């Protein structure tokens, strides 16, 4: 009974969209598959965009890995102070939507930058913002996903048993030798895994290349798909399906490469014990700490300051005077602009609904995957990971294909309504609630359930009275993560929104495309405030959570 229910949900949310995408290659909406294939693959724009995606993806991954690994090594292995605060602040860029990051950095560097004007360093008017370039995209991808690498490497470093390090130290190795010959080799799987994940995220990113690339006419695959669909509508669906399969292949290549690389050697750590004692930095400590503070200043404080300043000026290009800063832009978008309040309602509703649905599915689903191991569970897990592992545009296109025509039998049309976005969010983000739930299950003694079973409780009673209360904290933390991620989501909603179902991400994007940076910034600032407030709020119940469920809590 439970198995059937869960299987149906997974089928609907994960398997169906991907199957529909593949079906498009066999039986396209218009023309034959061969025609569309030839058209898509012979177009110069396809190959330029593919090349651009690879270029920014690889370079962005390298930058993110360098940033993330270095900070993770410093924070995990040395005696720097203020770790908790650093982790919290450093992870914020990961939770701020990419388009907000892009907008904030644009405000920081452009000729109209209120911040540069404030300190009298603004470039002359009319000069090009240096971020409108491949280099800019790479820089921001590195900033956005550095924290992702940081979190994964840090998790691996925390699992490193202290004995392995101490054995090397007592064998006469210096700290750098230990780092080079023991620590780095042992965390290789985590490094490879992080690189694969960051690469997939970079290739699938829409917000950053949309804000920085489109103005410079530098297109990557997601932005190419967006432009085609925005220009010609569903008529080009078959063509963009092929493009989205190209992105999927690139993303899969990253995952397969990771699998291949991590099989080549034995990296298994057999013992569990406390993490190694931190290395004392001595008089270098204050310098390293200053470096970390400078990093936070550069990737978080300055961009957000730029964003806030832009949101508080009325005329872009004028001299910025502190006394002229105003909240007028906020007033306008909240009271006079019809779409913004609606977008806030939509995004809050969508995020909340997606989080709730995911939480309710994740508890029984996690139960099956973590505790009822059988040959299906691996396939189940994989099919749920897929919609999140693949770039968001892929899922958006799959949803379009699936719901362009009314649902058979029921005859309900969800295309062009908010429901199609909700469907895509549930499919895409389910895994964010599932992963912490599985971690939660693995930390619960199975005997707790068996004790309830011998006490006479059936499966539903056990789920309700024993299992849900025990995994709830972990699952709810996953729900919060979904809420935060979905709140300012753009990639999926940019392709699926319609008038009346705008999301916050879409509104920011539209403002910026229309040249209204001040309004875009104002909406962004409100989103950032909501995000950080929620992060702080979840920290309040973090004591009851398994370790590592809230990424921003050290």
């Amino acid at each position, binding site marked *: 009974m439970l198995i059937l229910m869960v299987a149906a949900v997974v089928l609907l949310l994960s398997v169906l969209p991907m199957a529909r995408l593949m079906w498009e290659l066999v039986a396209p909406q218009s023309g034959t598959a061969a025609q569309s294939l030839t058209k898509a693959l012979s177009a110069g724009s396809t190959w330029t965009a593919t090349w651009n995606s690879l270029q920014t993806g690889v370079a962005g991954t390298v930058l993110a890995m360098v940033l993330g690994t270095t900070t993770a090594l410093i924070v995990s292995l040395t005696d720097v102070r203020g770790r908790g605060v650093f982790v919290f602040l450093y992870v914020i860029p990961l939770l701020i939507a990419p388009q907000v990051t892009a907008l904030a950095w644009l405000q920081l560097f452009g000729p109209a930058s209120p911040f540069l004007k404030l300190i009298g360093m603004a470039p002359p008017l009319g000069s090009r913002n240096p971020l409108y370039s491949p280099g800019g995209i790479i820089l921001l991808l590195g900033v956005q996903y550095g924290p992702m690498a940081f979190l994964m490497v840090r998790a691996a470093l925390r699992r490193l048993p202290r004995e392995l390090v101490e054995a090397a130290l007592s064998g006469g190795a210096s700290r750098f030798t230990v780092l080079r010959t023991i620590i780095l080799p042992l965390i290789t799987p985590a490094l490879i895994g992080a690189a694969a994940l960051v690469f997939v995220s970079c290739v699938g990113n829409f917000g950053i290349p949309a804000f920085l690339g489109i103005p410079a006419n530098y297109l990557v695959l997601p932005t190419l798909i967006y432009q085609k669909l925005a220009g010609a509508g569903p008529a080009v669906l078959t063509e963009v399906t092929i493009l989205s399969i190209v992105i999927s292949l690139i993303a899969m290549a990253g995952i397969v490469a990771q699998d291949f690389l991590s099989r080549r050697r034995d990296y298994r750590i057999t013992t569990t014990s406390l993490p190694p004692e931190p290395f004392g930095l001595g008089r270098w400590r204050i310098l390293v700490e200053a470096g970390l503070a400078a990093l936070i200043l550069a990737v978080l404080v300055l961009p957000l300051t730029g964003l806030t300043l832009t949101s508080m000026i009325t005329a872009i290009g004028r001299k910025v005077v502190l006394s002229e800063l105003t909240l007028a832009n906020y007033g306008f978008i909240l009271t006079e602009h019809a779409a913004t309040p609606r977008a806030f309602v939509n995004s809050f509703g969508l995020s909340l609904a997606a989080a709730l649905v995911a939480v309710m599915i994740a508890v029984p689903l996690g139960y099956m995957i973590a505790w009822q191991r059988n040959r299906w569970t691996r396939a189940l897990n994989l099919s749920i990971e897929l919609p999140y592992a693949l770039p968001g545009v892929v899922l958006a296109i799959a949803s379009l294909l699936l719901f362009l025509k009314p649902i058979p039998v029921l005859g309900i049309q969800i295309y062009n309504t908010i429901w199609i976005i909700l469907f895509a969010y549930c499919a895409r983000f389910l895994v964010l609630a599932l992963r912490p739930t599985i971690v939660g299950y693995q930390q619960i003694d199975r*005997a*707790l359930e*068996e004790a309830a079973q*011998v006490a*006479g*409780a059936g499966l539903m009673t056990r789920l309700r009275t024993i299992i849900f209360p025990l995994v709830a904290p972990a699952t709810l933390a996953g729900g919060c993560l979904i809420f935060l991620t979905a709140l300012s989501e753009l990639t999926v909603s940019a392709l699926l929104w319609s008038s009346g179902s705008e999301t916050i991400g879409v509104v920011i994007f539209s403002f910026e495309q229309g040249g209204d940076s001040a309004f875009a910034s104002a909406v962004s600032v409100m989103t950032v405030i909501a995000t950080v407030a929620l992060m702080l709020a979840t920290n309040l119940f973090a004591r009851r959570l398994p370790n590592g469920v809230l990424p921003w809590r050290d």
Partner: protein
Amino acid sequence: MAGLKIDGVTRRFGEFEALKQVTLEIGNGEFVAVLGPSGCGKTTLLRAIAGFEKISEGSITVGGAEVSGPGRHVPPEARNVGIVFQNYALWPHMSVAENVGYALKVAKVPRAERGRRVQEALDLVDLGAMGERRPANLSGGQRQRVALARCLVATPSLVLFDEPLANLDVHLRAAMEAEFADFHKRTGTTIVYITHDQAEAVALADRIAVMDHGRLIQFATPQELYARPANAMVAHFIANGIVLPATVLGEEQAGKVLVDVLGEQVVMDCPPGTGPRPAGVCLRPADLRLADSGGIGVAVKRAVYRGGGFRIEGHPVLRPDLEIGFDLPDPARLAAGEVARLAITGGWVLPAGQE
């Protein structure tokens, strides 16, 4: 309360047979220990009785009702079997009283009666005043008692103990052993007690089922297991008996027979019908005596002081491939390299085919 009948139970995991044709009959109110080294199948047996594992062959009957059998598997929640888990498995999100009353709540027992029965069960384990506490705020021994009360409250037909003392330190162990014996005396419940510790099993159980490699080797009282082990494994496992190769020289008469052990001729106990054949013999400390001359020669390899005496390890001079170990009480001394002479005064001939 009810008896338990396990009849020809086999459990396969793919090719591997975790239980092989296990047959056991446990009487109403009996305290039975299932004893064996890790991997012997005892945990699988417990999980099969509780209903967590389906069995491949055979049947399990509790109090006259078949719960597992061909085409039949009553789920654990419908078996009315209690389990005391190794780690207590108390639900951390419930108070002590809620933990104990859970089974009654699931069975929709009215609130007033539930409260009364929970209180009774808590009083029985001397935790009457602790009902509102959380499990996290109890000591190890108290948690164990809550687990006992929780298992008791639903008046199960039998109670399974899953190595309940394995995680406790030595001092608490002794106290809990006394607690379990007391629990059995007061409640008269049928108990199946899984353990790998022979001292624990011998101290607690009316009868012990010794298992090895998925098979039931011997099911008997502790005294019987000690004096008349069914094979070399039981002889070793129970109180570390010495097993030596020997030759039976005569025919059994009144349970005794003449045996040649490493050149010594000794009259030993034996199973009925024993006749001349090569056989294994089990020797206990009472069967050995240090002699000045005669007996078998043992070359001492190691002498380790164990408090009150030495543990001597060595090998017979005639058969350097065999190991022999025995205790030597103070003030006698033996050092490595010396040859000790051991006189054998008795022993037990292992049944045929069971060296």
